[in-house]
Structures are given as structure tokens and as C-alpha cells.
């Protein structure tokens, strides 16, 4: 090392006379006080006739502030050089060399050279002058934002001199670094963005604004960094950050890029079948996932019974997914959090993006309304026709003559009020209509509006406030004139959330308060024509309030150990007006055992629940690029999705906790080992978890759920339990990147009531509908050139448990099917291979438009995977199971995306 150091120094030679035996023993006399070191040294060199070698600018500005009278020169230098990179080395008794630890300089130089060689932009920041401040340590704060939209980029990585140290921006895009005064090369990375290099000369505290630019011409660079820019060893347990660009490159069902489908490929995440709505996380049910779109909950995230999800990837900025170690600012759902943040409009220029697929087309436009100040982004997607379902040609007539229609639209407005204040508005709407053959049409809709104010009080204290309203509902229209009717269901919620973020030394504190008011219209049936026989039934509205306080602290004890602890205090109130039935004690709850009706007036409290939810996550880097992580969380869930099918249908009911239904309580502990290899070129992770759920809800056999004002007679609560191990290997660099994961996990329930009819499977433990022990996922991306990618994924999972009829017999002159116990059989295993070829347009940034072709093959070897089983009446008059494969053959598709600047 030293040999490489010497050539870059300009050495000064001062003096050549000889006086003392060892120059470091030279006694100071006090005259040095208040003078520059440089001056004093040359005086000593003269006096001692010694040679002192050093680079003047190293010690330029070092002043001797006190008297070292009767102390040695060695002592003085040691004290002056403390906490600097300087040192004094005696080569000969009369030859002293001042050296500077060269490591940082070399690293900096190498980093700078490599950045320049790669054609990276390098920006220079200078804070203070060398020696201008007595501060040996400087604080560099900064913010990482999108160059085009001005939007902050959370969890971007910041590395100092490549390997010296690294950190990440927080969820507001802010970061801070404590450095010894000196020069450094900083690299800023974010998924999908060009790396930015900063040549930093930090001799005083300072602020850096880093703008990263999307869609690099250096495409291969981005691909190499891939999804794993968030490095494995540093990220929090249970959290995955989804890369929107990777999502776009993955093979897609009918060429429709889908966010939730991407979530389904993560370890620990399963789905009950192809095109099934939602996803299941670590053996949890679909309703246990909190899906947030700009902070507001989404109740039904699917189009066409789950063929597609309601989010357009182009309108999404970032997606965080948590399945364990969930921080305290999230709550209300027991299993996972999918936090989707929409994209802000570009503050400087207009962009448009048009996508043409086989079943939908979409358009997205964004740009400045007032340059640099106000921006908008809007998107719209719609189906062409009923092509999709009409193509599902089955013997089962109910699907083949179906009609489908949907759209979704988003609008986002952002306004920079000042440097510290941002105001944004999000609007989101989606509608679906799906009609089975004949007279029944299912319609469902989401509408969401929210306003958010971001304000930074001080560089350390930031905040955001969100006020929003969500409406979710569905109608089932029967158009048969004799029974023309509409069944409708609706949830209205209004929510206010305030969140504060405080950075204080090693602590990052998040705290806040969330309040949500719900109004449920649990069911309404009305005749829709004059001669309809349909009844007119309106069920009473249900009202509740959910509130939570939380405090979360991310504490970086040292380089190796990070702790995140939090506490959330949720409260839930169910209140009137309402009527509640009471039942004979000790008897099965059924209408004939009703003893009384309790009436609650408007606003009167029916039941209140409150809980304490501790959260903890620990990340210990016990060796280089290796870490051990532990997470624990407790979460209460107050809303229950009531369903008697494994796959969610749009007519399922959300039932709030109240007089009879206690909140679900989930406790999860997870632990994992993570290791990066060869400078993060490879990664290995393995995680184990155990989850226990109290008050898990399940339905009685044959439960009647729709338009039922005494659901307590149809539903049971018991225990849920899930455990498993998830292992993944990653290859993050090179032309071929990808990951392979294997999960073994189980999910059980035990519902043991006072009698057989209040128990399931006689109170014995049974597998939940999401118990899929073996899951394998393989995904890869091969960059054949800068613009051509061959991507693919393979997925395998054990078939899910089902309840089936086993035999038939006559009873009372009727044929009766003998059913198995709940979930005692399994549908066949599911496996599928998808391939895609992505051809991106010219990457020249000056070009006004850029097109991308995606050719994909879904189900490449034509496996007939069962989507679900369904039942037909057999000749003996009982249900007989069949399997319905929605995609029983190879399904090629092509889509084209056009991006205009």
C-alpha cells in the first residue's frame, strides 16, 4: 500500500541541521502556543537540524491552542493528531515523517476512477475548508429524490468510498452520515435508477440533495444491481421491497403485469389457486393482509375474480411488503402488510405511457401543472371486451357465456408548498362487472380519496398527516324478471392518520395516531322490477371506530447491531344503533334459542376492545456480510372477512368485531440467517417462523352468510397456528440473475366448541385452506443484451386442502352425500412454468419515445392445474367434484408499452 501512496505525495523538505538525539524528544518551551503547527514544525526542524517530511495541506490550519511547555514534540503531535488520520513516524533519529492514513484516500480515488470509467455523473460538494473547523467529525445530512418527479426515494442505499460504510435513506428519503472530516466518494443507489456518485469534501456539516434519474442508458448496470440493492444482511426481517421494474420484466398472465402476482412468488406467500383473489401469507387468510394504497386500506384488490389486481404498475412508485417483524405504525391485519405508494407527477416535464395488452389497454400521463411546484399524474386502464372470460370455454356453461367489464383510474396531485411542506391528493377508483350466463351480474367498486400533508419541522423532525375516505361495495343483480333484485353491500370508512418521524442520533423514532370510522351496510335486497317476487330486506348498518397509538424506535446500537422496537395500542369500539340477540345459556346459538333482543341507541357503546401490541426486530451482523435477524409482533385484527369458500368471491362480507365476535390476535416470532457472498453477488437467506392466532374465525358446515342478521349462529372462533421455514438463494450480479426459494410451512386451525355443532372436525386440529406444505419458486432474468431479456419463473406448491363428498346413500327417501371432515383431502399439486422475452426500445435518453415489447408464454408445458374444484349434481342427486382449470393449456401473449417524454 505504501508504495502506491508515495508517488502521489508532494513532499516538503524542511531544514537539515542536527541538534537532538531523537527529534520526537525535543522539548517544547511554550512559545508554540497560539501558532500554526506548520510554523512550529519548521522552527523545530531548524533548531534540531532534523528533516520533517509532510504535505503542507495536511496540517494547514492546525493551530496549537495550548502550551506544551516541558512536554515532548512526540507528546504534542500525538495529542494534535488524535482523531485525525495523521500520524508521525520516526524514520531515523533526525528524520520524522508525518503520514496520513492512506486507506481512505486510496479508496476514494479508486471509487472516483471507477465511477468516471463507467461514465457516471460525478457531482462535487465541498463543505468548509480543510482545517477551517475544529470539528473533527462532521454530519452530512441529505435527501434522495427522483430527478424527474422530485419525489423522495425511501430505502435508497448510500455507500461511502464503496466499502468503508453504508447506510440507507429512511422512508422519507432522508439520510445522515457521521464522517471524520475529509474527502469521500459517496455512491447513491436505488432500484431502477442510475447510480449517482458524489465527490464529497466534508470539513464541515452540510446538506446534500441527491437527485437520481430513472431509466438509465446504462441499462445493464441497473440489471446487475437488480432487486437486491437492498442488501440482504442489512434489511429488516420479514420485509421485502418490490422492484416495479422487475415486476414489469417478469412473465405475466396474458401479458398483464401484476403486482400481487409478484407478491405471490415471494417465500411464505401462497395463493389458493390460479387467478384466485388475494394471497395468503404464512398460512393466514386473505383478509389478514393489510393492503394500503397511499395509506388507505383496500378491501378488494382484484379484477375479474382475481385474474388481475386493481393496481397499475405504472402508477406505483414503490411497494413494501412485510410478513414478519411488522413495525408498529401498521396494524389491524394479522398476517402481512402490502404498502403501495403511488407515483408523484413529474415536476419538470410531461411524460406519457401507453400500454396495449391482449385484454386491457392503459394510459398514464404525468407532468407539471406549475413547473417545479405542482404536478399531476393520472392513469386509466380498461378491458376491451369480454374476450377473457369468453375464451374460458368450458363444459360448464356458467362460465363460458360470461361477460366481464372493468376499469381502474388514478389521479395524483402534488404541490410543493415550500421546501419543507408538500401537499398531495390521491384519488383512486375501480369498477368491475362480471356476469355469469343468464341473469346474474356481480358488480364491485372501490373509491378512495385522500389528502396528505408532509411537513418537515426541523431537519430531525418530520411529519405527515393523511385524511381519507374509502368506499367499497358490491351489488349482485338478478335480471330474471320474476325475481329481479339487487343485493348490495357497502363499507364506508373515514380515516385520519398523523405520523411523526424523529431522527435523534442513533435513534429513529416514529410515532403517531390513527383513527378510522367505519360504517358497514351488511346487506340489502330490493326488488328491481314491478312484478318481481324478490323480498325487500334491509339489514341494519353497523358502526365502529378503530383507533391506535404507536411508537416505534429504530435504534442503531453500533455498526453491527440494530434494534427496532415498538408498541402499538389499538382500540376498537362497536356502537349503536343496533339490535343484538341473546341466546339461551348453554344452548347452541340458533334462532329458536333466542331469548331476548338488546337494543342500543345511536352512539351507544356495544363493546370495546383494546390491546397492547409489542413489536420487536433485531438485526445483528455477526460476521462480514452475514446477519442474524429476529422479529416478533403481536397484532389484533378487528375486521373479519366472512366467507365459506377458500377463494374470495366479491360477495364476501366484512364483519366487524362486536358483541359476539372477538378480535383475532396474532403472535408471530420469526428468526432468520442471511448471508451475502462475494460482495453481494450471491445471497442466501433462511427464515423460520411460528405464528399463533387466537379467535380465528371459521364457518359452521353449511353456514348461511348473506342477509343474515344473526351471523353468530353461523360462525365459530377458535385457534390458528402456522409454522414454517423459508429458504432462498439469490444471484444478484452478472448477466443471469435470479432466485430460488423453497418453503416448508403448515397452517392449522382448531375450533373446539361446547358441542359438535359448535366445533369443526369434532374439535380436532385440521389444516386450514391455505395449508400448502411444499412451495418452490424459481425466477430468473437473463440479459442477452442491453435491451433483450429472457425471463421466467417456475412455481410449485402442494395442492390445497378441500372438503369433498366421499360416497352417497339414501336417507329418508333422499340421496345424501357423505362428506369428508373439513379440509381432509387435497387437490392435485400445482406447478407451472412461464417464460417471457422482453425487448426494450432504444435507450437513447434524447429519444422522445421508448417502446417495450413483452412476449410471454404462460403455463409453458400446458399443465392442467386445478383453479378450483366445483360440484355438479350426479345422477344419484348429490354433488360430485370436478376440477376447473382456468388455464389448461399454453397461453402465449404479447403486449406493447410506449413511453413518451
Amino acid at each position: 500500500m505504501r508504495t502506491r501512496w508515495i508517488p502521489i505525495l508532494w513532499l516538503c523538505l524542511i531544514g537539515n541541521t542536527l541538534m537532538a538525539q531523537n527529534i520526537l524528544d525535543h522539548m517544547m518551551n511554550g512559545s508554540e502556543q497560539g501558532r500554526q503547527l506548520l510554523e512550529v514544525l519548521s522552527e523545530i526542524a531548524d533548531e534540531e537540524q532534523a528533516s520533517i517530511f509532510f504535505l503542507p495541506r495536511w496540517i494547514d490550519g492546525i493551530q496549537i491552542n495550548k502550551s506544551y511547555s516541558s512536554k515532548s514534540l512526540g507528546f504534542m503531535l500525538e495529542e494534535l493528531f488524535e482523531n485525525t488520520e495523521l500520524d508521525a513516524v520516526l524514520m531515523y533519529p533526525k528524520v520524522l515523517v508525518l503520514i496520513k492514513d492512506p486507506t481512505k484516500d486510496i479508496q476514494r480515488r479508486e471509487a472516483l476512477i471507477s465511477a468516471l470509467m463507467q461514465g457516471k455523473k460525478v457531482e462535487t460538494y465541498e463543505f468548509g475548508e480543510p482545517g477551517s473547523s475544529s470539528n473533527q467529525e462532521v454530519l452530512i445530512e441529505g435527501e434522495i429524490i427522483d430527478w424527474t418527479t422530485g419525489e423522495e426515494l425511501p430505502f435508497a442505499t448510500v455507500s461511502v468510498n464503496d466499502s468503508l460504510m453504508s447506510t440507507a435513506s429512511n422512508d422519507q428519503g432522508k439520510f445522515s452520515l457521521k464522517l471524520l472530516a475529509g474527502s469521500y466518494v459517496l455512491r447513491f443507489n436505488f432500484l431502477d435508477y442510475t447510480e449517482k456518485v458524489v465527490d464529497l469534501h466534508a470539513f464541515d456539516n452540510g446538506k446534500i440533495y441527491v437527485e437520481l434519474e430513472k431509466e438509465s442508458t446504462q441499462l445493464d448496470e441497473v440489471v446487475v444491481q437488480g432487486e437486491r440493492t437492498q442488501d440482504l444482511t442489512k434489511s429488516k426481517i420479514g420485509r421485502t421491497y418490490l422492484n416495479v421494474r422487475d415486476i414489469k420484466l417478469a412473465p405475466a398472465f396474458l401479458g398483464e403485469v401484476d403486482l400481487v402476482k409478484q407478491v405471490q412468488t415471494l417465500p411464505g406467500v401462497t395463493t389458493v389457486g390460479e387467478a384466485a383473489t388475494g394471497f395468503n401469507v404464512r398460512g393466514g387468510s386473505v383478509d389478514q393482509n393489510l393492503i394500503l394504497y397511499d395509506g388507505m386500506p383496500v378491501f378488494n384488490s382484484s379484477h375479474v375474480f382475481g385474474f388481475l389486481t386493481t393496481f397499475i404498475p405504472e402508477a406505483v412508485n414503490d411497494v413494501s411488503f412485510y410478513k414478519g417483524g411488522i413495525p408498529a405504525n401498521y396494524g389491524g391485519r394479522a398476517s402481512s402488510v402490502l404498502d403501495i405508494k403511488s407515483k408523484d407527477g413529474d415536476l419538470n416535464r410531461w411524460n406519457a405511457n401507453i400500454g396495449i395488452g391482449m385484454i386491457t389497454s392503459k394510459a398514464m400521463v404525468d407532468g407539471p401543472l406549475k413547473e417545479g411546484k405542482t404536478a399531476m399524474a393520472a392513469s386509466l386502464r380498461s378491458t376491451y371486451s369480454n374476450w377473457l372470460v369468453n375464451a374460458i370455454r368450458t363444459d360448464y356453461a356458467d362460465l363460458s357465456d360470461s361477460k366481464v367489464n372493468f376499469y381502474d383510474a388514478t389521479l395524483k396531485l402534488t404541490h410543493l408548498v415550500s421546501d419543507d411542506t408538500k401537499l398531495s391528493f390521491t384519488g383512486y377508483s375501480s369498477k368491475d362487472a362480471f356476469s355469469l350466463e343468464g341473469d346474474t351480474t356481480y358488480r364491485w367498486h372501490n373509491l378512495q380519496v385522500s389528502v396528505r400533508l408532509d411537513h418537515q419541522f426541523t431537519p430531525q423532525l418530520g411529519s405527515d398527516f393523511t385524511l381519507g375516505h374509502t368506499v367499497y361495495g358490491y351489488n349482485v343483480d338478478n335480471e330474471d324478471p320474476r325475481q329481479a333484485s339487487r343485493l348490495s353491500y357497502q363499507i364506508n370508512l373515514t380515516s385520519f392518520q398523523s405520523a411523526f418521524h424523529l431522527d435523534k442520533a442513533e435513534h429513529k423514532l416514529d410515532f403517531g395516531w390513527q383513527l378510522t370510522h367505519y360504517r358497514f351496510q351488511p346487506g340489502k335486497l330490493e326488488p328491481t322490477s314491478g312484478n318481481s317476487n324478490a323480498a325487500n330486506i334491509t339489514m341494519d348498518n353497523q358502526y365502529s371506530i378503530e383507533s391506535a397509538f404507536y411508537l416505534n424506535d429504530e435504534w442503531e446500537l453500533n455498526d453491527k447491531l440494530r434494534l427496532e422496537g415498538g408498541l402499538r395500542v389499538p382500540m376498537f369500539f362497536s356502537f349503536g344503533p343496533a339490535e343484538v340477540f341473546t341466546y339461551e345459556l348453554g344452548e347452541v346459538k340458533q334462532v329458536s334459542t333466542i331469548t331476548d333482543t338488546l337494543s342500543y341507541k345511536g352512539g351507544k357503546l356495544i363493546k370495546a376492545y383494546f390491546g397492547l401490541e409489542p413489536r420487536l426486530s433485531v438485526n445483528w451482523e455477526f460476521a462480514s456480510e452475514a446477519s442474524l435477524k429476529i422479529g416478533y409482533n403481536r397484532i389484533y385484527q378487528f375486521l373479519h372477512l366472512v366467507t365459506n369458500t377458500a377463494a374470495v368471491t366479491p360477495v364476501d362480507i366484512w364483519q366487524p368485531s362486536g358483541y359476539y365476535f372477538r378480535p383475532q390476535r396474532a403472535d408471530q416470532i420469526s428468526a432468520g440467517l442471511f448471508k451475502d457472498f462475494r460482495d453481494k453477488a450471491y445471497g442466501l437467506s433462511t427464515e423460520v417462523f411460528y405464528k399463533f392466532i387466537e379467535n380465528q374465525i371459521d364457518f359452521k358446515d353449511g353456514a348461511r352468510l348473506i342477509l343474515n342478521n344473526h351471523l353468530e349462529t353461523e360462525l365459530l372462533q377458535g385457534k390458528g397456528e402456522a409454522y414454517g421455514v423459508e429458504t432462498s438463494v439469490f444471484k444478484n450480479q452478472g448477466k443471469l440473475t435470479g432466485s430460488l426459494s423453497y418453503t416448508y410451512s403448515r397452517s392449522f386451525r382448531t375450533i373446539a366448541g361446547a358441542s359438535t355443532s359448535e366445533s369443526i372436525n369434532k374439535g380436532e386440529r385440521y389444516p386450514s385452506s391455505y395449508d400448502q406444505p411444499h412451495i418452490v419458486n424459481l425466477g430468473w432474468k437473463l440479459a442477452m443484451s442491453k435491451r433483450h431479456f429472457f425471463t421466467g419463473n417456475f412455481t410449485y406448491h402442494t395442492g390445497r386442502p378441500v372438503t369433498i363428498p366421499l360416497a352417497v346413500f339414501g336417507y329418508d327417501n333422499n340421496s345424501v352425500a357423505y362428506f369428508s371432515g373439513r379440509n381432509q383431502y387435497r387437490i392435485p399439486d400445482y406447478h407451472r412454468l412461464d417464460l417471457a422475452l422482453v425487448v426494450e426500445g432504444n435507450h437513447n435518453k434524447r429519444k422522445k419515445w421508448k417502446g417495450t415489447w413483452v412476449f410471454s408464454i404462460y403455463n409453458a408445458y400446458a399443465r392442467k392445474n386445478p383453479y378450483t374444484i366445483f360440484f355438479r349434481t350426479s345422477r344419484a342427486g348429490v354433488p360430485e367434484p370436478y376440477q376447473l382449470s382456468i388455464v389448461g393449456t399454453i397461453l402465449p401473449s404479447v403486449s406493447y408499452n410506449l413511453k413518451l417524454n
Partner: protein
Amino acid sequence: MIFGCVQPIEFDVPPAESLVIVEGYISDQDEEYTVTISRAIPLSADSLKQPPVENATVRLYDDENNIEDFQEVSPGVYKTGGAIQGQVGKSYHIRIELEDGTIYESEPDLMKPVGNVEEIRYEFEARTEEQNFVNARKDVFNVYIDSDAGPGFGNYVRWRFKGTYRIVTNPELKVEVLPWSDLPRPIPRDCSGFRIAGHPSGSGYILVQERDCTCCECFVTQYEKAPQLSDDLLIADKQFNNVKVGEVAINNITFYDKYLVEVEQMSMTQTAFEFFKLIRIQKTEASNIFQPPSGELIGNVFPVNSDDRVLGLFWATATSKKTRFIQKSDIPYQLTPTETIPESCTVFFDHSTTVQPESWN
């Protein structure tokens, strides 16, 4: 493009025949009690012909150590001889020993008191149904009852609905069409009492009646499609009011003559009730094609000395019965005359008998 598909799904299930089915009850009526033992059949079976389990030893016990053996009266059908008569307040169970030594036993089931059916009412309802693009009449009489819930045990009540109508057919007019002749050849059923007396050339056949017809007049029984139960009914002052217990289809067969409605109110324990409730759910709930509304039937018959699969319910019930006729004249319009049915009525109609029910007149 075809990409969806439907195919039968195979599960590795135990053979249906390995499941033994036991059906039977004891009532408080002075009658022979019946237990049938059979084997289940696969889902794909064409008809409900279950293999009977023959030569079993079936024994009835009460909670006072009285015992009576059942006798096999036809394959798989076992009846008592009247030594034990069911009484409210007593518990009953049976023990079955198959030829191969397998023993099944039912859990003792308590006979609970029952209330009375106080009134049967019916009400005409006009309905239509589209058939071949034409709206066809599918009118019904809805049958309602009022009843007293019984002394404190109204939570678990079943109403067994049975309807009987009379029909007359013409088995002597049965013919077969011969390929070489334009003229159908009569093949009068033996039971019609007619025979072909001659076939003069150039003319038709001559039929003569030699005996009375024994298969021309039948009484056909219609059973309920599912058990009617009290769980979703409100009890007001120990009364069940306006409970719909059945429907009678109105057509020129069911109303060839008049229609006899019989409603039996039956008491039972929760065990039996849950068993019937699951059957009712299976037969009546709007079926979701993705999830049939049902679960595992449990019953109260369990194996004693093996792990054999058995499903059965032997229950005790106190019953009270009421009947009522619906007259043809209650139909607010004229039915078209019944078409001639050239077949023995016992062959043509399921659940039919030529024996006139006691309560017919």
C-alpha cells in the same frame, strides 16, 4: 383460443362400499320399529341402489335393561316385534353385530316429549317457469302449520311432511310398435285383467277383460326433499306459527283426485337434530358451485371392535301426526284432463302402492 377445461377430479378416497349406513328410529307410537343396514355407493352411481347388509344381529336396548331383537324381514331391513314400545323420558340404543363379527353400537338417545300440530293450512301460489321459451304453469299449494312447541323442548323439532295422491292408469292399453307393421300390437299388462282375444285379419286386436285390474289405481306418496327443522324459527309463547312445512305441486297427476297432506311433529335430541340439519343444508341451501354447503355427518352409531367406517343415526322420537286433504276444487281453475297412462301404476310411479291408506276416506 381454448384454455379453460373441466375434468373429473380423482381423489384417493376409501371405497364407498366400505362405509356402512345405519338408519332407524324408535317412536312413542305402537308400531314396529325399523332399522336398515346398507352400504354406501360411489358418487358416480346411477341410482340409489345400496347393497343391503344381510344377516346382522340387531338388538334394541332401553335404559331399564329391556332388550328386544330385530328380525330381518327383507335384505338389510330389520324390524322389532312390539315387545318394547318407546316411551317419553327413556333412552334407547341399538347394537349391531355383522356376520363377520364387526360390532356397532349407537349412543343412547333420549326420547323427548313432543307438542301437537294444531292446524294445517294451505295457500295457492301461482308460479311460472320457462320451458322451451314458453312460460309454463308451475303452481303450488304452500302448506303451513301452527303447532305447540311442547313442554320446554321446542328447540329441536322436526316436521315430517308426506303427501299422497290417487291416480288411475290404463295398463291394458300398453302397446308395442312392430317394425313390419303400421299397427301397434297391444301388450296388456297381466295385472290389468285384460288379454288379447283375437286379431282378425284386416282389422285391429280384440281385448277382453277376464279379471279385475289390480294395478290401475295407485296411491302415490311424495316425501319431503329435506327434513324440516325448527332451528331458524322463532318460538313465541311456546308456539310455532305459520311454519311452512311443504309444497304440493299442482298438476293433473297430483290432482287426479284429491291430495292428502300428513304432517308429523317429531321431538329429538341435539345429536339427531344436528344430523338432520346437515342433511337439510345439503339438500336445500343455494349451492355455491365452488363449495357445496355441507360438512361431515357424524350421527351416533360408532364401531366397537374395529376401525370400520360406519355412519348412522338411531334416534328416539315422540311424534304427533295430523292430516288434511286438499281438494281439487281448491284450485282456482280447471286442470286439463289427465292423459292416459298405458302402464301399470305401480311401475309408472315411484313410491306407489295399490293399498288405500287408512286415512284416505
